[in-house]
């Protein structure tokens, strides 16, 4: 943007104009960067507030002090496969009742029905979103990708507890998993497993 070389009309390209243009161009680049900065900001924001029902993607350690038997929380399981994923995917039970602080172990069954080797990734989501921060997974198949041979099935483990700090208004938590077929975007090293 070198407007200073030759002015085709009678408008002098004075210092002030140059300064103004520089500032505005910097603003433009800053806002472009801000657009990308929104990505990590969004994640941090959701992490702190638990707004979008995202759960942690790393294993939690059990650190609740005791089981709160005065409350019972109904945890529902929903499983679905994303469009285009020819996999079978279902929980062993539709729901389970837990006391806050109580550890539970649930299995999900996945079967590759594509007829060839494939890799799948399950993505969890908790509803209501604000309960997500209190839903702690000690072990979850969603932490890893799941490679399966053609027509191979497997029981995938999930171990969790509900934090006793969970606010009183929550009596039901829905844990939903969506299984994506990510074979195409997986490096071949994983496929050879």
């Amino acid at each position, binding site marked *: *943007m070198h*407007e200073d070389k030759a*002015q*085709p*009309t*009678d*408008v002098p*390209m*004075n210092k*002030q*104009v140059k300064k*103004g*243009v520089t500032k*505005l*161009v910097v*603003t*433009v*680049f*800053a*806002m*472009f*960067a*801000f*657009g*990308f900065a*929104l*990505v990590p900001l*969004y*994640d941090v924001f*959701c992490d702190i*507030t638990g*707004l*979008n*029902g*995202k759960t942690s*993607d790393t294993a939690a350690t059990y650190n609740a002090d005791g089981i709160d038997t005065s409350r019972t929380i109904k945890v529902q399981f929903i499983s679905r496969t*994303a*469009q285009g994923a020819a996999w079978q995917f279902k929980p062993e039970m539709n729901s389970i009742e837990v006391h806050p602080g109580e550890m539970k172990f649930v299995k999900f069954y996945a079967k590759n029905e594509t007829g060839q080797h494939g890799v799948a*990734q399950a*993505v969890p989501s908790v*509803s*209501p*979103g*604000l309960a997500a921060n209190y839903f702690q997974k000690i072990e979850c198949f969603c932490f890893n990708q799941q490679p399966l041979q053609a027509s191979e099935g497997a029981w995938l483990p999930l171990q969790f507890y509900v934090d006793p700090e969970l606010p009183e208004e929550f009596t039901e938590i829905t844990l939903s998993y*969506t299984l*994506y077929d*990510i074979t195409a*975007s997986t490096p071949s090293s994983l496929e050879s497993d």
Partner: protein
Amino acid sequence: MTTATDTIDAHDEHHDHKMTGIKRWLYTTNHKDIGTLYLWFSFIMLLTGGAMAMVIRAELFQPGLQIIEPDFFNQMTTVHGLIMVFGAIMPAFTGLANWMLPMMIGAPDMALPRLNNWSFWILPFAFGILLSSLFMEGGGPNFGWTFYAPLSTTYSNGSTAFFVFAVHIMGISSIMGAINIVVTIMNLRAPGMTYMKMPLFVWTFFITAYLLIAVMPVLAGTVTMVLTDTYFGTDFFNAAGGGDPVMFQHIFWFFGHPEVYIMILPAFGIVSTIIPAFARKQLFGYSSMVYATSSIAFLSFIVWAHHMFTTGMPLAGELFFMYCTMLIAVPTGVKVFNWVATMWKGSMTFETPMLFSIAFVILFTIGGFSGLMLAMTPVDFQYHDTYFVVAHFHYVLVTGSLFSIYAAAYYWLPKWTGHMYSEKLGRFHFWCSLISVNLLFFPMHFLGLAGMPRRIPDYALQFADFNKWVSIGGFAFGLSQLIFLVLVIKCIRGGEKAPAKPWDGAEGLEWEVPSPAPYHTFSTPPEIK
């Protein structure tokens, strides 16, 4: 002023007409030429996007699928939206800014004339790219003008790259135009024209330019993320890879909401110029207008998620965005009351620019009210993605922005062409447009309330009657715009000679130069008292 005008004329003779034919337009750095190019371009785009709307309405004339395939229908709704937003409304405003801003502030030209040439001439390429994708195998973009991921990423038909590059070029063009407007207003005002003496038209373009500079880069970032998600394996919006499709909506609407004010604030400026001229009174509450415009611009940054009430936000978020959105009604109300107060007890006459302006005030307010209804979270769950939304944003964009652009065109046509336009044809255009536009968009409210979803090529039988009326209104409105084309061509070719100031209530520096405005104006800045 006579002496100043004389020098301008003398100056004109030896400086003018260096180039003729196509070169004049290709190489021009004159703000008036570029303004003209922008205005013609936006009108061509209006007709192009309008033709797509005709296809949509023809398909929706009766239930069932009769004319086009659903996929092509989706391409039509998508490209219609993109063309109208980025090709018709925004360039028309930039064209008006180019033509009028330097004359209104007493500047000889825009501050960056070459940049100005460039920002116009990349636009035809942007729309060339976008439109060409319609003729390619697989078709053009079909994911809606809002290009929600994963529709535009995982499930796109291969047109995403064309779409993204087109949007990049449009964005660069808008940003350059906006930078030009800001530095022009900041540096080239005639001596004595303080900020609070600027015409409101100038103020609204000043604020709009800032909005553009703030949010167009965010749009560029969004489309870039869509591009890399689609073709380069990133996972910004791909849940399978740890991304989040809802985040797309947040980033998009962070751009998208200020964008809607980019398309309406200049309209406020236009109407605030025209109503005082034909009511023959000063604009009521000038400074409150300036502050109202600024507060709307500020608020536009903190209301984006009202487009996303149904994504499962927590209650606190929904309440926050609901209240902030409703807050916008306050400065907007200030404006509407100021326009009405300006007309109150004025000696009004009803030439075409005034007719369009009054229609703007009434119909934009209807659009504003339906916007308030949509702002209420609980009812938004019912209205979301129905024809009620379509009715709302067409009331603010067609009877709002577009009508204001027509008002501006009629108001300044004598200044641009040197001839009076045919008042008879103008009124004919106005009344045809007014009646057909309401037939077109008003029943959409009822369709939406009854549950007809938007962007679907077929509908349930109970919506048939209203849709028929809407389509008839649509065809009539489309045809009515050709009257304007005829009127403008006639006005350019001849007609009653226009005086320097054809409207006796009009104020502003642009009326102090002769009509048509000479190629170079205000080479020596005027004196502002």
